[in-house]
């Protein structure tokens, strides 16, 4: 009986989830002027829409990873959603290809205010190995406004979570520990 085996496995495995990391405010690209009342409404609960704007799919591996049991992101109020219309945060990977430039702008426009953009990975932050070319617009901020940049190739799950939390946390870039 599969159910019996599943229950046995669940009890044997126990909890593997780990405590949430702290926001890394140093990853902010500029000082955010969020109204305190907006943050109060959101708390730290955010809906994220991931947009692959031309990534090599390395960053996507780590986005999948934070959805695994070690990270328990829904427990810290972070949830991936299927539409930009449901999202507070756009998590954008890759150098933005010219073939996706329009789609990325439309996705940004479809996301309701207030919204934050997290650029993930060296390519998203700087253009990375691919840079700017006939086919690549380079970094995400060349195409849409970016609030937080998380470097790394790819960034580790912890760095990614610190960046996501930085987008929606109180506190100041300048007083970051």
């Amino acid at each position, binding site marked *: *009986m*599969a159910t019996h*085996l*599943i229950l046995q*496995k*669940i009890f044997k*495995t126990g909890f*593997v989830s780990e405590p949430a990391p702290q926001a890394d405010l140093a990853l902010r690209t500029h000082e955010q002027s969020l109204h305190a009342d907006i943050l109060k409404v959101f708390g730290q609960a955010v809906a994220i829409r*991931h*947009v*692959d*704007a*031309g*990534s*090599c*799919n*390395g*960053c*996507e*591996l*780590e*986005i*999948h*990873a934070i*959805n*695994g*049991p*070690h990270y328990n992101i829904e427990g810290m109020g972070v949830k*991936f959603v*299927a*539409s*930009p219309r449901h999202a507070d945060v756009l998590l954008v990977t*890759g*150098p933005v*290809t*010219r*073939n*996706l*430039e*329009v*789609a990325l702008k439309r*996705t940004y426009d479809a996301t309701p205010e207030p919204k934050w953009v997290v650029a993930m990975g060296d390519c998203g932050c700087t253009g*990375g*190995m*691919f*840079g700017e*070319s*006939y*086919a*690549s617009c380079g970094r995400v901020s060349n195409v849409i406004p970016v609030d937080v940049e998380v470097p790394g*190739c*790819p960034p*580790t799950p912890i760095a990614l979570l610190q960046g996501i939390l930085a987008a929606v946390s109180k506190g100041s870039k300048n007083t970051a520990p």
Partner: protein
Amino acid sequence: MNIGDHDWNLKPLGKHVWRGRLEPGQLLALTRAIKEEGGQLIALWGSDDRHLGGGFGLHVVMLTSQGLVWVNKVLPAQAPTYPDLAHIFPQADRMQRATFDLLGIRAEGAVDDRKWLRHGAWPATVFPLRKDFDPRSLATHDTDAYPFIRVEGEGVHEIPVGPIHAGTIEPGHFRFSIIGERVLKLEERLGYTHKGTEKRFEGMDLATGGKLAGRVSGDSHSAYAWAYCMAVETATASQVPERAVWLRALFLEIERIANHLGDLGYLGNDVALSFGFMQFWRLKEDWLRLTAKLFGHRYLFDCIVPGGVAVDIADSGKTELAAEADRIEAEVNSLKAIYDEHATLQDRFANTGICKPDLAARLGLTGLAGRASAQAWDARAQFPQAPYDKLDVSMATQRSGDVLARAEVRFAEVTESLRLVRELLKRLPAGALHAQLAPVSTVCEGLGWVEGWRGEVVVAVRIGADSRLDRVHPHDPSWQNWPLLEVGMLGNIVPDFPLINKSFNLSYSGQDL
């Protein structure tokens, strides 16, 4: 070397790889001869050779009973064309269209000459991979009208999906034509992640080229990095220390295990068994963390470098990795027992997304998905490079060609790769990790061929006399397999698309380049 009853004047270029230049009229004859003996077309691309005193070049790599054959045909500088190969090997279709988009080399007589990698970013009269291409000349954004093939009739309607998808997957557009819930036709439109990778290689030094090669498709980093290094080392006639070669195989198998564990979890997830997702991703995360602890990177980025490897493993690390391999194997076995027993999962997996063996052979299905449809090719088993020639790899195959078969192949390959990891650790030779590449004095070329987790990864390089990269073509097995996803989807219901798509798990970045 003979294929059919003709000597094609092919010369060895590394182990199991043959190189030849075709005389006029030979391209079709050789392609047909390889088709007749049961071979496959693997890759097709072009090169601009005008700066080397030639015109253009058409390059074709085919799989034969004696290994990989890499041939090229010299094309004139003005109006370069070659005869269509897609009527012999249908998988050539998109490769031919991409070759035209990038180089303006046309397949004469091709049925389908629609654009493929070109969307609206550059005009149809400009070819980015030509050496005299001027990047300042373009930046058009036309409307990117693409003539999809319409299915018409009473009750037929279309569902357009993407390029931005609802889940964390890469961008591409899928056009479903359906009646009720049944899919009458699926047409893919890819190329969204085209970021000019091949152009980027031009003029790079050999070490930086290795880093870029590993980022053609990040989930196959070690496969690409190794294939690139193999090509560079063949071109420069450089020797690689034995320990480095064994460590490369270790990295490749670690990568295969990580990807298969993730896919097996997602396959469970896509039939609403989130238990499967959580369990397999727990194992994958443990595996990645140990990889990072031992080698400094969760996905082994930049661990394989031209001339050898950049990291070593200590004896304590060997013990730890072997113990983890034992634990993962036991856990995977217990999860396989659950997948086997789970009625809903079996019902959703079996007879879903079928690619029958005869169709798979005709259309060139390759790699993991090919083996699930009785296409028994695995370079590690049949044409082993060192160290696989000492490891006796056992190939996993299935005949049913459905989601279940592709899951079964993954289960079998996880077990075999865990065995290989233990074997590689046990017999790892001592010695240096890295050797200097031999210096380059003239234009030289090489080809690397590695069986990545998804299928064969082939990288061809030409190095200029200044020892910088002149032309690099990385080939992903997704080129051949994307069209088979369209076939596998026929007659299935739309809600099964995520499951079928995941069971192939093809690379967008690897084919969009």
